[in-house]
């Protein structure tokens, strides 16, 4: 098993810049998520780790060894494709043993190894079956079997659950995470599903337009987004943004939005002009006394909570409140903010301003 370090990795396709100067480290044994919308460069990054694409510049270290320009076959990593890519002209057992035979392992040893892996994955009964007739989940297990059979340094997975039905995906993601915990293998997992990333990942890299927006453990990324993009991409519903013109100076503990003063964590940097206040829906509360006012336009019932949509002077916001609170659409109410959870973003660059609360995450994360 291995540590994977990515330094200033860049990839151009002609004049299109797919990945720009990415830097992050996947620690040994970590379950690492590459998260972002489609076209953000996450799959390209993964393919460069695998050796299916060559980087334009930058380095990839696997276990301290620079492998950026090495062939895929020399990197000792395994790749799980979204479309499984099981060899259709071979049966299940042959598919799993195929990577072993390339290493010159004898057929008897390979057969023993395949049996072992099949037992781990619970597909002993399928080894003689053609891959054509298998269900989606079984195909995924065979693809995993082909990946784990040769005990590679790392597993790279490109949306491995993307082709499965929603219902089954849940089950497979648990199975995958359990398998990882048992084997302790370094795993890099590409997904565009923020829930999947939060559920399964030890650490997450959020990418957008080829740029690493943030890199950290799921809770840090959720609580203290480094950019407005991350704040919007993660969470359902996403963070609310109130765009306003104003000023922040170092040491401030409150902001003025229009006429209203709102308490925020102590700010550590100064900014002026277009600013954005970010607040998660669960950090908003309806309160008649609160000075920031809004009109309730909709309420969605979700069981234990409800999502209330309000129109305010600085934009539409959503609040997640307990479902027993009675709300009536068309009425006006006050909105109270959870002061210690707020983030202020630079309105132009979208970067989060450093405060006492997110300082730890943004500077050291």
């Amino acid at each position, binding site marked *: 098993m291995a540590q994977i370090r990515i330094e200033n990795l860049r990839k151009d396709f002609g004049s299109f810049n797919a990945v720009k100067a990415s830097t992050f480290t996947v620690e040994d044994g970590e379950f690492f998520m590459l998260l972002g919308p489609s076209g953000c460069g996450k799959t390209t990054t993964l393919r460069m780790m695998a050796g*299916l694409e060559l980087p334009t510049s930058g380095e990839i270290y696997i276990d301290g060894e620079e492998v950026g320009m090495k062939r*895929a076959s020399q990197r000792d990593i395994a790749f799980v494709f979204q479309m499984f890519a099981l*060899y259709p002209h071979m049966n299940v057992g042959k598919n799993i043993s195929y990577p072993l035979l390339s290493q010159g392992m004898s057929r008897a040893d390979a057969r023993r190894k395949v049996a072992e892996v099949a037992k781990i994955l619970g597909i002993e009964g399928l080894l003689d079956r053609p891959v054509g007739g298998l269900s989606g989940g079984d195909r995924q297990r065979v693809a995993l079997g082909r990946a784990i059979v040769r005990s590679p340094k790392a597993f790279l997975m490109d949306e491995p659950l993307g082709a499965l039905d929603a219902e089954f995906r849940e089950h497979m993601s648990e199975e995958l995470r359990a398998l990882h915990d048992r084997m302790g293998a370094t795993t890099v997992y590409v997904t565009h599903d923020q829930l999947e990333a939060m559920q399964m990942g030890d650490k997450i890299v959020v990418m957008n337009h080829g740029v690493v927006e943030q890199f950290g453990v799921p809770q840090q990324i959720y609580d203290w987004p480094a950019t407005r993009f991350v704040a919007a991409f993660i969470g359902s519903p996403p963070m609310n943004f109130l765009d306003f013109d104003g000023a922040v100076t170092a040491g401030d503990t409150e902001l003025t939005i229009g006429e209203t003063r709102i308490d925020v964590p102590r700010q550590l940097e100064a900014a002026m002009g277009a600013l954005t206040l970010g607040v998660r829906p669960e950090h908003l509360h309806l309160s008649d006394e609160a000075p920031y006012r809004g009109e309730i336009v909709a309420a969605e019932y979700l069981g234990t909570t409800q999502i209330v949509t309000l129109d305010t002077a600085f934009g539409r916001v959503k609040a997640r409140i307990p479902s027993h609170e009675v709300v009536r659409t068309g009425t006006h109410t006050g909105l109270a903010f959870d002061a210690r959870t707020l983030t202020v973003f630079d309105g132009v660059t979208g970067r989060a301003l450093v405060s006492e609360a997110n300082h730890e995450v943004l500077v050291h994360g």
Partner: protein
Amino acid sequence: MSFSVTSPSPAAKWLAGILVIGYAIITILPLVWIIATGFKSPADAIAYPPKLVFEPSLEGYVNLFTTRTRVTENDFAALPPASSWYEQIVRDQGMVIAGPSRYGERYLNSIIIGFGSTALCMVLGTAAAYAFSRFRVPLKDDLLFFILSTRMMPPIAVAIPIFLMFREIGLNDTHLGMILLYTAVNLSLSVWLLKGFIDEIPVEYEEAALIDGYTRFQAFIKVVLPQAATGIASTAIFCLIFAWNEYAFAVLLTSGAAQTAPPFIPTIIGVGGKDWPAVAAGATIFLVPVMVFTILLRKHLLRGITFGAVRK
């Protein structure tokens, strides 16, 4: 896969059956006619109205494979009794066997040139189609169009230049010359057809093989080729049919050593009157290899081996 919601009515099934049988009869009839004529006597072959029931005879086949000559009546009477059944058939016509005909050699030429050019065409075509399908080839579209454009003129338009070229470099009337020529003509078709088939094979298979520790060439041989088998088989059939049936180039560029069967068969007509049974016999035997080849590869044409292995 899709299924219709309602199954067809019995009347529709009957109608479909009748149409298929009718079409089969129409297409099989000429074949039956040729095969039957091969077993008729010359008189039966040209009888009018045509004879559907006749006494089968091997005269056509014997005449196809022999050259015969007439001898004077005295010499004929002095001959020892026929030593074999085919000699007897020739004697019954009042002739003696002078030697074997050239049909066997010409037929062998057809086999060497037809299968040789098909094999070469498959090797080159698969390699080129793979490159066009997978690699960034400069001016790819222009090159593909150029390859196809060689197909746009009739063979006769280039026959004279090719004849002169072949004469100059000594390829006239050689097996190698004909194999190269038929390969060149067929290559455009095979590159285009095979590129289509290879485009259909998801590139992930090769990437998986690369990661599993194989070189690109091994991945091509072990992963791409087995999946392209259906395409290769059907393309090979097209190439073989063309090379096997080709007449214009063969007439012009071969006369002796490398002459194929198609230009030879018409020459049978001239030997001792219009010998239609011999022509029909030649045509019947000529049909066999392509039929056998097609039947052998039929299962590849029908088998959808990639179904279900990749979810699209």
